[in-house]
């Protein structure tokens, strides 16, 4: 069976995908078909990897197609614009400062190793880079959404010991460090936190901040993904719920068939962008 047959085969689970969301595996050529002269772009082409945007632009140039219909961005850039138009703060701690904050957290609260984040999987868990890796991995899986955090503990509970405890320890470590970081800075802890802020903003304003930021955009195309992280899913979810924008996601050939089937489950989350941390200030 070739690729095209599989893609077009009716699939029960595809019915659960909202009308304004279309999932593709590869097939980026469709983007080129929509190229046409326009006074203002009406399609936002979003890819997390900057060089992917350049590759698409190079293809357009080589085919002598106009770029006028497209506006190229990465997901963080999109969220910054939304937050700016909403008058919300856009400052975020970068990785250099985050690692230094993590170092200071251990300096202050953990004078001895016993209070570090002990993980049975080994490696010194007070190494700031490792701690940051734990935090970002949990964030990619859950976006710190309460429903997903419960799903995590439920999933862990079904595993044999001591793996169940190990998975829970990773979750606790990530939440602990995220909480500590939030206490130590007035800015967003990371760019991903800005993604959540924009996601909540879109939902809370019933899409008006989005329309203000992108009045001419009626389609968003998300390109070149080898995974669909929880923060990206939740942003898509908020846009589908609160705006009229049409969304196309192009997965890649090696993982796309798998990922597209996971999308309905990932979207089955209420109030995307919610976090279980106390709201310390207006900016959250």
């Amino acid at each position, binding site marked *: 069976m070739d690729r095209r047959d599989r893609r077009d085969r009716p699939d029960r689970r595809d019915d659960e995908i909202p009308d304004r969301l279309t999932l593709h595996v590869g097939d980026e050529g469709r983007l080129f078909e929509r190229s046409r002269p326009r006074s203002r772009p009406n399609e936002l082409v979003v890819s997390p*990897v900057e*060089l992917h945007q*350049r590759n698409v632009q190079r*293809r357009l140039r080589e085919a002598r197609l106009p770029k006028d219909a497209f506006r190229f961005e990465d997901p963080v850039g999109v969220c910054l614009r939304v937050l700016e138009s909403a008058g919300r703060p856009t400052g975020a701690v970068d990785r250099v400062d985050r690692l230094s904050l993590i170092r200071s957290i251990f300096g202050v609260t953990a004078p001895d190793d016993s209070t570090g984040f002990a993980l049975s999987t080994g490696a010194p868990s007070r190494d700031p880079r490792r701690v940051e890796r734990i935090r970002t991995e949990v964030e990619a899986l859950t976006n710190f959404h309460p429903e997903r955090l419960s799903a995590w503990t439920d999933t862990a509970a079904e*595993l044999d010991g001591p793996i169940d405890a190990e998975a829970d320890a990773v979750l606790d470590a990530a939440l602990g460090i995220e909480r500590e970081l939030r206490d130590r800075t007035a800015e967003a802890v990371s760019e991903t936190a800005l993604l959540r802020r924009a996601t909540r903003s879109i939902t809370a304003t019933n899409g008006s901040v989005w329309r203000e930021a992108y009045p001419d955009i009626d389609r968003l195309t998300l390109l070149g993904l080898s995974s669909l992280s*929880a923060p990206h899913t939740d942003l898509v979810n908020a846009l589908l719920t609160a705006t009229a924008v049409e969304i196309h996601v192009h997965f890649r*050939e090696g*993982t796309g*068939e798998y990922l597209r089937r996971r999308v309905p489950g990932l979207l089955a989350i209420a109030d995307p962008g919610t976090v279980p941390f106390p709201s310390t200030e207006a900016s959250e």
Partner: protein
Amino acid sequence: MTGADRLALSRPIDAPATTVVEMASPTRRDEARSAMAAAAALRDRGVPVRDLAVAVRDLDPYEEPLFRAALQYEVAPVFWTQLRVTRTRPYALVESVCEALAGNSVDRETLLRPLELRWSPATATGPDPRSAEWPIEPEAVHRAAELLPDGPRSPPEWVEAIESADGVDDRFRRFAEWIAAAPAPDPASVASLLGEAVEGYVDRGLSETKAADSPALLDTETDARAVVRVRTLVRQLRHKFADRLEAGTLERSWDDVADLAGVIATQRPGRREHSNARALDVFEANDVWALDVPYVIAVGLTAGEWPRPSQSVLPPEFQEAVLRGEGASGSLAPQPAWVGGRDRDQFADAIRAAGRCVVVTRHTRTPDGDDVARSPLLDHVDTRRVSEEARRRLIGADQELPPALREIVDGGSGGDRE
């Protein structure tokens, strides 16, 4: 989601019907030579350089051997990767200035190091009648090192020592006075002093690189990219130094400024560097997505390199449960990279990027002489293998294109896409 869907991550890859030519070499270094020899031989047979691209899963271990091999076969490569800014001359200059300013006294070598790295006074302060004298020629710096006294001295003592040394010209005094006049580091003085050093380099140092460069101007391009990065670094340094002083985590010392510069410079930025249209593009495999070029040379198809083992901190059993996505775990975002999904994507996209032909290369031995296996990703495609004899003729003096590749270049058939 059912457990069976999970198998979609190990299903055969639907690769387009592009010809795949496989070339195995003994070591990584040999492999890099084979890859660049193939690029050069294709070029010499009339394939324009812009119709070629090299894709490497991870450039870190390959950049240096590929660069050397490229020089050997007279190919000008452009690496689409983050510049290793700490290895560039403008960065070294900034670092050396901090070191010359650090502490109460410095030794002769530390004092003269910025001059070796082409320190020049900034022109922003007004026209300099002696502008042709900067930067100081390397021979003069070398001579001064022999004439000046050994042992650590404070900057004012160095000014005196230079004045009283026979044969050390006035330019050295001017530099030593600049060092002696430097204020204690605060955010503003860090930015202005290091900024001056960078701009002095732009005005005078860069042209030295250009004069000594090869016709393809690769060093000049690297230097120019580095200047852009170091300017940004100096700006960041100002803000971060202010933050750290306020937080009390740094001392007001030039030592700490140098350390902080190192921390900032070694963070990999998310931004990729710029290219040069006439040179051979060398990408990391993730970056060839959506590219369309006739010939792709995919490097590193060796087990353990491509695919690479996952770096996840999660227990494998938990990963597996999330990948299956049954029940509660269906709302957790799975990472296909845990089981090589990202590598599958990159492999498939490297092959898809090629309009006519893909050359895959691999090596068969580790530096310790142990055998390493062929990448399991190659099981997804039919390959035409290049014999060791043909490979030797390719890398040798004649640079003879292996028959499998010659057919494609000459015939044009066999490279049609689906």
